[in-house]
Every structure is written in C-alpha cells, then in structure tokens.
C-alpha cells in the first residue's frame, strides 16, 4: 500500500510525544493523518451522516452501499455455501413454505423483560407479537419491541471484532481477555471492572457473580442512563430494603400520579399498566367502575393525556405538593403547605383519596427524588392500599443497586488509575450517556485495557481498544426476568447475522471456561438450578429436564417463576430526608427518556426516528419543549434556538411549544445528537446528555437565553385545536350516565339510507369492521410501529415528513381542548375508515381501489397509476402516496425483514390501511381447511394485536356476538363525519372523562358549544 510506504515513523513519534492530555488512536495512519486515512475516515459512515438528513442523498448513498453490504452482511444466512448441498427431500417437520412459524422469546429493556412471540418466515424473523400467555404483557407489546426487528437487520450494526480498528479473531479477543485477567490475579481483581446495563438475566448475573467470586476485589457496575435509582432509594428509605412497588390499577378507583408516566411505553411497565388502567375506563358494563386519575407533572405525557385532572407544575415543586397531600391525608410525620395555586387541587385530591381507602393509589415518578417515592409509599400505607392496589415485589433486576453512586465510584476509580481492565457490555453507551460533569470518556482513557461489546460501534466502542459485536436478542440464547419476577428463556430466531457474540459468550471469557456457546451457558445454568425451577411432575432426570426445557421454550416463560409479594412495613424513618422546599424559583430543565428512541439506543432505527412522538407529534428530532406562556415571555416561536445553561454547561436547542407544559420549564428528550449511531441516527437532533449533570439528572435549575437563529422542527400535526368539530366526542361521566347516547346527539344531521344514487352493497359473508375506544387509547404509538412492521411501510426521512409525505397507514391524531395552559388531550387512532360508500372508489379512473365482497376498500397496487384523486377525495386523508421510490429495494438485510404476505410498493402508487387483509386471508384459509367459519378473534390486525390497552377491536360485524359487533352496539359508538354518508366501517367509542366536581374542568369536545370554548386554537405552522 502506498499509504503505508508514505508513513513517516519519526513524525508519528514526534506527534505522539507532542500530544498532551488523553488521546486515543486506532492505527499509525490515524496518528500520521495521512490523506488516505482521512479519506478512510471520511468514507466511514459518520462522515456521511449529513447525507442521511437529506433522503435523496441517503437513498443514493444506500444504493451505492448496497453492493458492498450484500457482500459484507448476510453471507451467513442467505448465500449458499460453496460445498455441495442438498435441498429439502423431506420437508422439515413444521415448516410449510409460505406459512410462518411463531417462536416465544423475550426482549429486555430497562431491566425488564417483555414476553414475545416472533413470526418467522422460512427462518427469517419478520414481525414481533406479544406472547398472549405471558403473565405480564398478556399479548400486548410496546413500540420498542415492535421496532426491535428493524434493529436486528440494521446494516449499520458492527460486524467484526476489532482491536484499534484492526479486524481480530474471537480467539484473539479471548487471549487478550485472559491476558488482562491474569494481570489481575495478583491484586485479586482490584483493577477489574465490569460495566453492564441493568441485568435482569439470572444467567448473566450468575456468570458475573462467579467472576466476582474469583476476583473478590473486582467490581460490577450496572448503568442505565435513566436509572430507577430514585425509586430504589425511596423504597429503601420507606421499607429498609429494595423492593419494586407493583400497582394493580384494576382495583384502584382513584389514582394520583406524582410526575409518574406509568402508561407510557418508555416506562418499563407501561404495557402492563396500560392494560390494567384501561379495564377501569371501559364503560360498557358498569360505568361506576370508571376510575379517576389525577396527574401532577411538568411535561405533558401520555399519562397526563389520560388524566381527569392534570396540574402542570415544575418538577421541583412536586415534592412540596406530595407533602401537602400527605399532610392533608394525615400521614403521620408529614407536613407542608401546598404550593401557591395548587391548594384547591391538593384539597380535592386528598379528599378523594381519603374517601377511597384501600382502593386508591399514589404513584411516584422515576424522575422524582427518593423523598417523593417515600411519601408515596407512606400515603399508600396510610390509605391501606398496600396489599390491595399495590404490592411489593423483589426488583426485576437480579442485583438491585443505586447505579448512579456505583457509576460515580467507577469514574473516581478510573481517574485515580485504579482500574486497569474494563469490560463494557450492552447498549448503555456510557461515553455518550454518563452525566456530562463526570467526563466519563476522559476518565476511560486512563484505563489500560478497555473492551466493549454492543450491537453498534458506538461512541463508547470508539473509545475502547477492543470491540466485540454483540448479538441482537433475536440471535441470542439468554433469559430475562419480567416485572413480576417471571423468567423467560430467550431463544434465538436466527443465526447471528453479523457473527456477533452474546453477552453470555463474552462474559464466559472472564470465567473458567472461556469459550462456551450461549446455549450451553444458559442450559447448564438451568440444569443446575433445575430442581428449584421445575414442576414436581417432571422428575429430575435429564429427560425430565429436556421435557421441561422444551415446555419453557414453547411457552416463552417458566411457569411459576413469578416472585411472591414481600410483606414490608413502613420504616419509622421513612421521612428522614429534609423537605426540599417549594422548588426552583427560576427556570428549570427536565430531562426525559425520549418517547421514540428511548435513551438513544434506538437512534439508528428509522421506524422510531420517524414515529411522531405521542404528545408533540415531532419526528426526527428532539426539542426544548416549553409552555406557550413561557415561550411568549421569552419571545420565541417553534424552532427558534434557545441557549440553556446548567451548572456552566450549555446547550443550544430549538424550542417547541407544548400546551399544558409547566411554566418556566424546558423539557429535553435524551438520546439525540449522537455522533456514532449509524447512518440513520448520527447527527440527528441535539444532545441533552451534554447538559445533564450528575447532581440533578432528572431536573435542574437552569438559565435560558434566546440564542438567535432557528432550526426546522418537523411535526406531523401542526394544528392544535379540533376547531369545534365533532371528530372526537366526549362527555363527563355524569353526562354519560344521564345520556349514554350523547355521541349521537352531536351528529350534525340525521341521514336516511336512500341518500345515495348507487345501490346498497349486499353482503352474504363476513362484514369486517373495527371499533376504537377513545376512552382507553393512550396514544402510546405501539400500533403505529406494529402497522409499519406488518405492512412493509417505508421510512421517508425528515424533509419528506416536513412536506407532509409521511407514509404511516395508521396515525394517531392528537387534539387539545380547553385552556391552552392546561388543556385536555384527546388521541384518535386513524386507520382507513373502509367506507361503505367510499369516496375514493368512485373517483379512481382505473378502478385500482375497489370494494371487496366483504366490504373492504381493497387497494390494487399493480393497477394504480397514481392520480392521487382518491387521496384528495378522502375526508380522513388516510391514503399515502409513494411520491418517489421510498422503499429501500437494494439493502439485502431489509429485504429479509419484510413481510412476504404484503406487497412492497413501488414509486408512483397510492397505498393505505387494508385492515391487514393478509391476516384475514390467512385466517380464511385456515378456517376452510378446518371446514368452519372464521371465528371471532381469528383475525387480529397488527394494530389490535399490539395495543396495550385493547382500545382497538376488529372482527365480523355481521356476527352479532362478535366483540366488534357488541362494541358497535354500544351507545358511545359513533361514525366520524357521519353526515357525509360514507358509512365508515371504522367507528369510535366516544371518550368519557370522570372529573371531580370540586375542581374546574375543560369543556368537553364534539358538541356544538365546543366552538366558542376553544382557546387552544392557535397554529403552530412553521
């Protein structure tokens, strides 16, 4: 190589000697900064990240890259070996070409597992479903589980074991690891550290504990950027031990959330709680069972959107409010007055809680200090809720810890040079996510031997000499614990696509037998603990284990592994922390996990980047969310840059006006601004971690100044108000009880059947329909990602979304009603309405959209010429047009991900929701084979299946006993825009709110009176 010949070693040496401070380098070329090396750097993807923001460039880039990707990525799975191979002579058992198989597994996020069923087509996992038998998520999933399938196939995942950028073998890594370990023997491991995410895998915990046993001075640090430290500390303060409070919302009549976003997907328990909460919002049987939710929070959240009363309040003031409520309730030892402006709220909440002893619930948010958690525990204790609506379980993580303190110690140790070897496992990406004031990256440079194993060659990998590509959970043998302690065996669906090593395999290199497969590690562990984990019936023989093991794999979890509740007593010193006072007087910054990309680990996931965030509907960005009033005072509009300063660190971020936000507070979603996420996520948004300090990782006093300049933020819904229209209809509970059919009275005009000139459609068979309950929908977005995954919906990029060309077949509309500073929020999932008299069908000149014999508006992609008339004439604007070739037809990995049952659409054609017609047809074939009708529940659409709160119901309307027919018979059921006489098949169940008569409320929506009350009617067009 000419580049190598040109290297001037003397110059390099001088350069290295002249350098001061921590520095890292990957190769001699790197130090010499030869043009070839700079070119190489430039060619690596971060340099091209700028192209990613421009989809035209991105698509071109992908096309150019595809050839090399084809060679690099998938050789293990798609290319046949050179040796002579034999095709199926006898078909393997259970595999029928064209018919998917489903395997149970589990995905862990934030230290909690979700039980999954994964659809696999001829060995390619294509779609994630919830495991209906799993005791926690009961078949539902969140958006991260839905989107995780895309990460599996991500062409930007790291593919090779490297040392300083050079490709190495697995055995070379093991040798290096053994070398690093043997250097630690003399000091009993004093210089060895293992840094992981929160570990909820019993096997991994056992492996690490085994290492710690043999190296007693070594330390294991668990680090999650958004830790549950405060909850842990609060529990220990209240009960003297780490316990996880697990709530039973099915039994709670009155709920007070102290800044707790318990329904949100980014909360580890969102799926479970959304289901339970929804069960008390369903009005069909007993309206009296409807619960009441009070929410105090700074940032409008999904949970806040469901609140009957929501009080926007600075995060730092929530503690004072909690103390005031506790004092009012008469919790012994609690005292404090309500913050100005919240007196009425405190009185009403306290009275309501006191009136529901044993059926109420106080929930504290993870961002609130330990004192608030302790206060919540004390209130629940005083209200007699313990054992009723809240139970205390062992934590889902195997070894609970206060991660922040442990991480702080690690940084101190590294700074002091006490750490010689550090192994970083998992996706916590500490270089990017650790509090800015610790300067983790700099401290890391003082560690002599650094190894990282993760899915991506991320910011942390960049700072380590060794990098081992990790396996995705769909490629991994592992195990994982759920919130209730239930253990799932994680089984892989596919061979590692990029030759990665699982965390167990990497951890094994620290153990006695360095080279062990993940399968052996996991199986041997359960073999050893078998007697404890097994049914008595299975016997203890190897055959008995095999039988049991198969059962676990099949079911997706180990029956009976759930933890039993602990009996805990409130410690007398629960109120030991001094009261924090009335909160910050100036401006405050709140840090939150992003509702789309979590803590940044999903930054390279196009589905999640493009997903409109539930409340703001922003995509492809994070912003400093701010109340309208504060924005006015500061003189900023959407997209204007502000400079936020926390403890001397500054960040320039664009503002986004968020009605209902607490005044003088800016909320930043974490996880954006990554430099090494990959081609999708690098360079997108601003990095909130750069502002986040260790002293106050959740909210901090800040200074704010207008920075001048602006930035384009893109949202899929610019308009706040519903403009007095009856698209969403709502009533108060009393009004509903008086008049259950209120939604029908909000109809603009009554229509007769014969209004159309066209003859009525006659149906002899199934009549498919959908009902969506606006009272249980939380707007969590799981359905949107599920739809995207099931239906091969492309990602279009930020500038296309800016131009109104997003492709989501199912969107969630969000409307505000009432006071702009504290509005009510309504969510409305919007799939195709599948009209009887469909306006789209008659205007298509080539009959590309036609009525099926079962009443669907079928879309014939092959026939479509793309006049867009159907979209113009659709009152719901649910049709999506391929303005150009949005779908990536080149990257081979993405081809593997696609659902083979759904057409991959090309340029120039219209597409839309089909009620998952491929699933209807699969059920039809099955029913025909079994010579029966399709039963209710045989066809579950992707959105319905994912929905944690079961707000979406699909089925045969012609069958009066079907769930959907019963819902459509509900008094709350209404057709949106009914006066157009298009007779939609998708109908909505009107929302009912249950406010406390003692407190002021926002007006309901949908009635004619709504128009005049609409304060929040201003625009946020950019």
């Amino acid at each position, binding site marked *: 190589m000419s580049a190598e010949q040109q290297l001037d070693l003397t110059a390099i040496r001088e350069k290295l000697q002249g350098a001061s401070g921590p520095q890292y380098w990957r190769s001699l070329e790197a130090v010499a900064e030869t043009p070839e090396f700079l070119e190489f750097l430039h060619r690596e993807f971060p340099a091209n990240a700028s192209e990613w923001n421009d989809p035209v460039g991105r698509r071109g880039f992908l096309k150019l890259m595809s050839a090399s990707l084809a060679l690099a990525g998938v050789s293990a799975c798609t290319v046949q070996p050179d040796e002579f191979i034999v095709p199926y002579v006898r078909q393997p058992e259970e595999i029928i070409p064209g018919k998917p198989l489903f395997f149970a597994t589990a995905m862990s996020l934030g230290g909690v597992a979700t039980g999954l069923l994964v659809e696999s087509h001829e060995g390619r996992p294509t779609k994630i479903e919830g495991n209906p038998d799993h005791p926690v998520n009961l078949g539902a999933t969140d958006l991260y589980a839905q989107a995780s399938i895309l990460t599996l196939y991500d062409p930007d995942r790291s593919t090779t074991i490297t040392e300083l950028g050079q490709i190495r073998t697995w055995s070379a890594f093991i040798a290096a690891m053994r070398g690093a370990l043997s250097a630690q023997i003399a000091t009993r491991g004093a210089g060895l550290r293992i840094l992981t995410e929160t570990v909820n895998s019993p096997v991994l915990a056992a492996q690490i504990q085994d290492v710690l046993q043999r190296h007693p001075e070594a330390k294991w640090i668990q680090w999650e950027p958004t830790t549950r430290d405060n909850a842990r500390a609060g529990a220990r303060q209240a009960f003297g031990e780490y316990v996880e409070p697990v709530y039973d919302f099915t039994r709670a009549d009155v709920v007070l959330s102290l800044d707790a976003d318990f329904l949100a997907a980014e909360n580890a328990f969102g799926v479970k709680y959304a289901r339970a909460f929804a069960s008390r919002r369903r009005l069909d049987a007993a309206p009296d069972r409807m619960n009441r939710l009070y929410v105090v929070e700074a940032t409008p959240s999904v949970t806040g959107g469901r609140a009957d009363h929501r009080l926007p309040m600075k995060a730092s003031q929530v503690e004072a409010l909690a103390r005031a409520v506790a004092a009012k309730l008469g919790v012994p030892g609690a005292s404090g007055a309500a913050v100005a402006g919240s007196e009425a709220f405190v009185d009403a909440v306290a009275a309501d809680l006191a009136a529901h002893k044993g059926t109420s619930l106080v929930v504290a948010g993870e961002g609130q200090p330990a004192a608030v958690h302790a206060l919540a525990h004390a209130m629940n204790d005083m209200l007699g809720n313990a054992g009723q609506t809240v139970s205390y379980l062992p934590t889902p993580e195997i070894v609970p810890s206060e991660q922040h303190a442990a991480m702080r110690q690690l940084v101190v140790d590294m700074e002091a040079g006490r750490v010689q070897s550090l192994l970083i496992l998992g996706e916590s990406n500490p270089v990017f996510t650790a509090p800015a004031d610790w300067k983790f990256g700099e401290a890391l440079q003082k560690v002599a031997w650094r190894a990282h194993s993760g899915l991506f060659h991320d910011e942390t990998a960049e700072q380590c000499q060794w990098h081992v590509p990790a396996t995705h959970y769909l490629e991994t043998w592992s195990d994982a614990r759920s919130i209730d302690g239930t253990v799932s065996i994680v089984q892989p669906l596919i061979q590692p696509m990029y030759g990665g090593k699982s965390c167990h395999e990497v951890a094994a290199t620290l153990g006695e037998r360095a080279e062990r497969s993940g399968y052996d590690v996991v199986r041997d562990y359960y073999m050893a603990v078998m007697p404890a984990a097994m049914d008595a019936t299975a016997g203890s023989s190897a055959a008995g284990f095999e039988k049991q093991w198969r059962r676990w794999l099949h079911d997706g979890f180990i029956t009976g592994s759930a933890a039993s509740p602990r009996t805990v007593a409130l410690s007398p010193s629960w109120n030991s922390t001094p009261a924090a006072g009335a909160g910050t007087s100036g401006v405050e910054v709140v840090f939150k996990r992003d509702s789309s990309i979590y803590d940044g680990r999903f930054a390279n996931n196009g589905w999640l980047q493009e997903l409109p965030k539930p409340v703001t509907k922003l995509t492809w960005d994070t912003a400093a969310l701010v109340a309208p009033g504060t924005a006015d005072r500061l003189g900023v509009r959407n997209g204007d840059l502000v400079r936020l300063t926390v403890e001397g660190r500054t960040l320039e971020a664009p503002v986004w006006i968020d009605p209902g936000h607490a005044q003088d507070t800016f909320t930043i979603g974490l996880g954006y601004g990554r430099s090494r996420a990959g081609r999708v996520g690098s360079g997108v948004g601003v990095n909130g971690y750069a502002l986040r300090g260790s002293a106050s990782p959740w909210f901090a006093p800040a200074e704010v100044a207008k920075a001048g300049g602006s930035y384009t933020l893109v949202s899929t*819904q*610019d*308009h706040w*108000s*519903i*403009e*007095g*229209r009856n*698209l969403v209809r709502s009533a108060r509970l009393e009004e509903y009880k008086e008049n259950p059919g209120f939604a029908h009275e909000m109809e*603009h005009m009554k229509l007769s059947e014969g209004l159309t000139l066209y003859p009525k459609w006659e149906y002899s068979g199934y009549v498919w329909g959908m009902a969506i309950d606006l009272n249980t929908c939380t707007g969590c977005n799981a359905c949107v990602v599920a739809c995207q995954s099931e239906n091969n919906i492309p990602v279009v990029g930020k500038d296309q979304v800016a*131009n*109104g*060309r997003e492709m989501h077949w199912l*969107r969630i*509309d*969000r*409307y505000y009603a009432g006071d702009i500073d504290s509005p009510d929020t309504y969510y*409305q999932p*919007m799939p195709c309405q599948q009209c009887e008299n469909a*306006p789209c*069908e*008659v*205007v*298509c*000149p*080539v*009959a590309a959209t036609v009525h099926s014999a079962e009443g669907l508006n079928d879309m014939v992609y092959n*026939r*479509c*010429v*793309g*006049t*867009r*008339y159907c*979209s*113009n*004439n659709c*009152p*719901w*604007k649910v*049709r*999506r*047009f*391929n*303005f*150009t*070739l949005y779908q990536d037809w080149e990257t081979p990995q993405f081809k593997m991900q696609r659902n083979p049952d759904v057409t991959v659409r090309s*340029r*120039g*054609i*219209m597409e839309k929701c089909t009620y998952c017609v491929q699933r209807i047809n699969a059920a039809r074939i099955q029913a025909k084979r079994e010579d029966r009708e399709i039963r209710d529940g045989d066809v579950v659409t992707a959105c319905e299946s994912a929905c944690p709160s079961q707000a979406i119901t699909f089925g045969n309307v012609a069958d009066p006993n079907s769930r959907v027919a019963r819902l459509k018979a509900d008094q709350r059921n209404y057709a*949106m*825009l009914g006066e*157009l006489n*298009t007779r939609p098949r998708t109908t909505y169940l009107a929302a009912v709110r249950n406010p406390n008569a003692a407190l002021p409320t926002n007006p309901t929506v949908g009635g004619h009176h709504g128009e005049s009350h609409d304060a929040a009617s201003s625009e946020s*067009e950019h």
Partner: protein
Amino acid sequence: MAQNSQQSAVTLEHPVLGAGQDYETITEAVSQIPLSKRTPFGWVLGFLIGLAGLGALQLAIGYLLLKGVYIWGNNVPVGWAFDIINFVWWIGIGHAGTLISAILLLFKQQWRMSISRFAEAMTIFAVACAALFPLLHTGRPWLAAYWLFPYPNTMGLWPQFRSPLIWDVFAVSTYATVSVIFWIVGLIPDLATMRDRATSKVKQGVFGILSLGWRGSARHWHRYEVASLILAGLSTPLVLSVHSVVSFDFAVSVIPGWHATIFPPYFVAGAIYSGFGMVLTLAIPIRSAYKLEHLITMRHIDNMAKVMLATGLIVAYGYGMEAFFGWYSANQYERFMLWNRMTGPYAWSYWLLIFINAGLIHVLWFKRVRHNLKIMFALSLIVNLAMWLERFVIIVTSLHRDFVVSSWDMYSPTRWDFMMFGGTMGLFLTLFFLFMRFVPMIAIFEVKTLLPEAKVHASHGHGAHGHGH
C-alpha cells in the same frame, strides 16, 4: 356566407375591416407572412424564447420521469396543485378559439372571421399544453397513458366509468380531435392560396399536399360549407361540455370548496373569459407587428373586451354565489372553507382574485379603456393571472384544510413546478411562432367575404372565392 343583413356592421364607427381593402390587398397582407423569405428579427427572438421554454419543459419532464412527482410540492392533503391548476388553466384558455370559430359562426358574427384562424390555433396549442398535465401528474404516466382508455385487454378490465377523470379523458380527447379537424378543414382554401402563390418548389409541394387538391370549384365550396357547418355544430356543445366535465373533477368530490353545483356554468364562463384574455394577449402584438390593423381592427378588440366583461361578470357572480352557498348551507365545513379562503394563509390569492375578477374588470365598461391597446394588453395578462389564481384557490385552498384537522398542511411549489409551468408556455410559444411563420394566420377567404365586392355576388349563394389572384 356573406349576408346582406350584416351590412349595418360595416357602417359602424369601427368596421370589422379597414378601409381601402380589396381581394388583392387582403391576400397579399396575409399570405406574404408565411411566404416571405425574410424572417423578421422579432420572430426569431420570440421563437428562441419559446425554444428555451421548450427546453426547460423537456428538462422538467425528464427529471420528473426519473424521480417521480416527488420533485413537485404536492403532498397529502394537497394531492393536486400546479399540475391540475395548469391543466384547467390551459384547457380554459382553449375555449375562446372554439367559441369564436363555432358558436360565433352559427350566430353569424362577421367579426369573428379575422381572428378565428389564430384563435383556433391557440386552442389546439393550449389543449396540447393542457394534455401534458393529466398524464404527467400521475405517479406512473407510462401506464396512465393507456390504462385510462377503454380498450379490450387481457386483464379483462375496464376503466372506472364513474370517475370524472375518465370523463375528462373522453371530453378532452374529443375536444382535441374536433378542434384539430375543424382547424385543418378551415385551412384548406387558404393552403391552396399559399400553394398558388408560393414560388419555391418546396413550398409549392408542401402546401400542395396539405391543400388536398383544392381547386376552388363550386362543388368544393359546397362540400366545404357543409363540412364547416357540421364541425361547428359538433364543436358548439364542446364549448360547454369540456369545461363542465373538467369542473366535475371537483364538483363530484366530497371536499368542501369542490363539492358545488355551481361549478359547470361557472367554469365555462371562466374558460371563455380567460380564453378571450389570451386571444387579446396574442392579437394585440400580432396586429401591430405584422401591420394587420386593417384586418384585426379596433372593433375586434372592442368586441372581445365586451365578451370578457360579460363572462367576467358571470364569474364574479359565481364567486358571490359560492360565498352565499357557503354561508347559507349552514354547513360547518363549508363555512370554514370560505372563512379559510378569506382569512387563511392563502387569503392573498383569494383577495387578489376577487380584486381582479370582480373589481378591476369593471374598467371594461369604459370605451376609452377598451380602445386603449396598452391597457387592454396589460389587462389581458392580468385576467389570465387571475384565472390561474382562481384554480389555485379552488384546488389548493380547499385541499389544504379539509375535514380532519390533524391532516391540515401547507403547500408550497418547488422550482420544478414553476419550470414545468413555464415550460408549457415555452411549448405554446414555440408552436404559435411556427404557426405564425408557416401558416396564414388569418382566414383570407373568409375575410374577403366582408368586402363590398363579395356582396355583389351574394345571389350566387356563397362567399367570394378570391384566392389565386
């Protein structure tokens, strides 16, 4: 053709034919333009501008076919924008030609004679420009090019006959066909004149072939008269039907601002209004550049201005009715649509439109204005701008905020939208300049029937056949 009853027209202050004309002067004035060897500098300049526009059009179409509709500003909810605005605008412009040659023929309006030829040419070229858009605005024009026609095919599929876009296909293709035939038939006697007067072999040959052996016999004239009357009869309903059908694209839909029963007459009036605007835009410079003031007289300008005033007032009445119905319907969405037009983000387009078409147009009541060529030329351009805005208001402003608030969005055109629009103007100019240079742009034989000499032979039954002198 020549009618005694029309004699009064000649005696008016501004006759339809200038003084001192005879067969020879008329033939010479018109036929020397295509036959002259000298190409005027102005023509070369104009033609080059047209060619530049045509080049831009080719570039715009080429890139469109390469990338898709993506290069335009269209989105969801605004699925149609410049593409359909331009289509309706061009189709509308075409209407004046047909009205002049067909309806005015049936009404025996003599003043139509000297402007009918180039007005018809304008119609054909405008329809050619218009026809590009419905094809190219589709996502897959290579399929739309034939799938919209009802032809027997192996797929066993017919088009959706309930779709107004299919009606458009029939309406526009019929219109184009009839207009072209009418124009060519009307050209035959004059092409024969060209043949006879041409001196070069090539021109004699080309005009000879094109004139289809016309010798001017009484039988020829008889056939010709019958054919013209039949074609005029066929064209007459087209003047009304084509733009009515185009308006159905909107009226048949459910979108507030589109779903209106007033659209067909309102669109036809608007089409004639803009068409006469375009005829004026062309006639005023042509008559002065080619010294044809004695053939296209102030009376023509005056009459066209009056037609514009009348149709403009119908259009303005349409705006009034739209607003009235929007309010009177008591329909929330209709009312909002109206309010959004008047006060929404695109209010400027609505008020500019109202200012021109309901306000400025009233200056045409004044003869001083109608006889001021500079003002009339400027006004003809302004009217066509306003009619373009009218389609913008109808299409974009209605679509961008319809029923479901969450999908409201804004529309802004891209440079490719403008290039495509400008490109069709280039196509139009190119075709029109070619027409001016190679085809007699005034119907020589028809204008001659206005001469007093022609009246003498009126008893022979037909107009004067003054060619070949």
